[in-house]
């Protein structure tokens, strides 16, 4: 891995993130709605659930679909081939764009953490839980990006998957059967951890999240080995 190549890709992604309206919207939408609702909703109990709800949706949706759509767009527009000709390695590429998306997500989850009311320790715990969820989301997004041919096809697989992943915790509150399944999904565990942020971390929940990340990582290794970043 060459540092100049990594930083070139990161530079590209950093510049593009402010110009790509769909991606920018994905980042700003959920925190903005959350802030808006904090302002207008009077009920304290609902108020305290707002950062939890929207940060869970954010974690399930934004990192995943951003990674997938960036990779798919570069395939479709042939910029990935141009990078290949400049002997950019797939690892350098993925880490380059991944690092920028990761940092941007950090900013947003920091904002969500600051929205919670509670002492500083609660905010830190909130931040760490979301950070934990960021990892499986980004890996899954990369898998979907590698699998897809172009932006059209990425939309058709990413939308249902990210909707399921991010909204399952919400639906599971209404239905016991959904909850049976959703407890194996990382976003459900994130949501649970955030809802019980004042209690001590249940290691089982953390393990499920890590387990998710691990499964996605294996999936990633398989598709990466098979397809790499071939167009």
């Amino acid at each position, binding site marked *: 891995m060459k540092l100049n190549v990594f930083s070139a890709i990161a530079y*590209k992604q950093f510049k593009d993130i402010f110009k790509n309206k769909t991606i920018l919207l994905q980042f700003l939408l959920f925190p903005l709605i959350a802030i808006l609702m904090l302002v207008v909703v009077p009920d304290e109990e609902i108020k305290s659930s707002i950062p939890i709800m929207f940060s869970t949706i954010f974690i399930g949706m934004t990192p995943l679909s951003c990674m997938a759509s960036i990779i798919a767009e570069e395939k479709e527009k042939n*910029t990935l*081939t141009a*990078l290949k*000709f*400049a002997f950019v390695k797939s690892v350098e590429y993925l880490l380059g764009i991944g690092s920028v998306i990761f940092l941007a997500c950090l900013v947003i989850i920091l904002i969500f953490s600051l929205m919670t009311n509670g002492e500083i320790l609660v905010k830190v715990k909130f931040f760490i839980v979301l950070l934990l969820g960021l990892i499986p989301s980004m890996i899954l997004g990369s898998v979907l990006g590698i699998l897809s041919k172009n932006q059209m096809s990425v939309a058709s697989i990413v939308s249902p998957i990210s909707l399921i992943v991010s909204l399952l915790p919400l639906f599971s509150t209404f239905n016991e059967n959904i909850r049976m399944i959703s407890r194996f999904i990382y976003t459900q565990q994130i949501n649970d951890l955030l809802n019980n942020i004042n209690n001590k971390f249940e290691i089982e929940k953390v393990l499920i999240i890590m387990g998710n990340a691990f499964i996605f990582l294996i999936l990633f290794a398989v598709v990466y080995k098979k397809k790499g970043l071939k167009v």
Partner: protein
Amino acid sequence: MSINIKEVEKEFNHKRVLDKINLNIVDGEFFGLLGPSGAGKTTLIKILTGQLNPTSGCAEVFGCNSSGLTDQIYRNIGIVYEKSGLYDRLSCGDNLYIFARIYGIQKQRIYEVLNKVGLSDSINKPVQKLSTGMKQRLIIARAIMHKPKLLFLDEPTSGLDPVSANSIHNIISEMNKNGTTVFMTTHNMSEASKLCDNIALLDGGKIIEYGTPDNICFKYNKNKQVKVIFKNKTEIISLENLSEYLSKQKDKSHIEAIHSLEPNLEDVFIQLTGKRLV
């Protein structure tokens, strides 16, 4: 030797697209691969640049098998292919800066190449606001920024107006004069005759003719006629009779010009295949 192609064949689902291609391209040569749509030109470039593997045979670039080109080889080649990708939302300057950084090239070189392709004024313009011709020039700027020894151009002027095409011809022919080997595909015959040292005519995956543009045209000059243009008329005379014809003219000052009438590459192609090129 820059490129060495031996018995290369390519099949897509049992359909043969390239058939026993043999070609050598020496250092400093401007080579043109001509053929109609679907002849297999892009496929051959893809094989040479390591995007596709040949079904059989072997292609070498700078002595290295094209299916396993090393970073060192890639460092010495520049590629302009159909639908080359640019970052639409980023500026011209940023598009080049990313690659300058990857190649480890000084920033100064960005201004140099932008100047060369006549885009200095557009350095801060986002790519999506450029015309097709400007985009193509930017792609060429990117391909030559690292001073490659070998340049692959897949239809570099297709879809461009004559003025843009001409400016691209000037850029690449200057590169070639400075020693860069060029491998260009095109279905534009006049472009090929103007620029290329050697050309190969490709049809249905086979090379049906190879040589310098002039030699190919002379080879198929069956009629051997010349056109004599007078102030008020033109006449077509066979070459054999030309000197006799001229000696019979009392007042030679009426003759404006004498043109040879060998076929152009387009005519040769039609003669050989019965098909038009475009």
